[in-house]
């Protein structure tokens, strides 16, 4: 049972790491222009665009999920 548990977790970890490495190559680095986006809030009504803040305020982006 413990072996199966560790093997499963290792497989998922490897899968996550592969995803990260594949996309991190194209992710913006310090000094790069941040990719613009437009998203809606949890109600689906209020919209925000990253470029709305250009020339006005710095923006802290916090990415994550509930799990």
């Amino acid at each position: 049972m413990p072996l199966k548990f560790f093997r499963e977790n290792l497989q998922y970890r490897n899968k996550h790491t592969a995803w990260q490495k594949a996309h991190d190559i194209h992710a913006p680095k310090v000094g790069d222009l941040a990719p613009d986006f437009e998203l809606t809030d949890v109600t689906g009504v209020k919209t925000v665009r990253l470029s709305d803040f250009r020339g006005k305020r710095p923006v802290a982006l916090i990415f994550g999920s509930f799990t």
Partner: protein
Amino acid sequence: MRLHDLYQRYHHQVEFLSVYIREAHPVDGWWLGKGLLGRLVKRFSPKASTDLHDPTTIEERRAAAGQCQDSLAYGIRTYVDEMDDAVNKAYAAWPTRLYLIGENGRVEYAAGLGPYDFWPSKLQRAIEQHLAQKEPAAA
């Protein structure tokens, strides 16, 4: 330094955007909710959910994001990535990541890959440096 504290301290000078992306540890994926691991997650991340399935529609993702926003109660408005994960992919953000974008639209701080480099204290240093650069030099 927690995100909530960062927000409280800097939200008059910095726009905080929380972007909800695909689940890191859903029940139907790399689930951390069972057994000893589940108990550890509950103990050290009591506000995190361990019973969510990976949303398959934007409505489900918005609902999960709303629960998360209410549970964490950072005060930061949450915006939801679309189901094509376009913003998540553009920023290589999954499962979690921090950035600071300057007024010129350029990246001032890019944390390393999450969750290992998810340190609000590093974001705070970047904010402090950025704000200090904006202040006029003392006479």
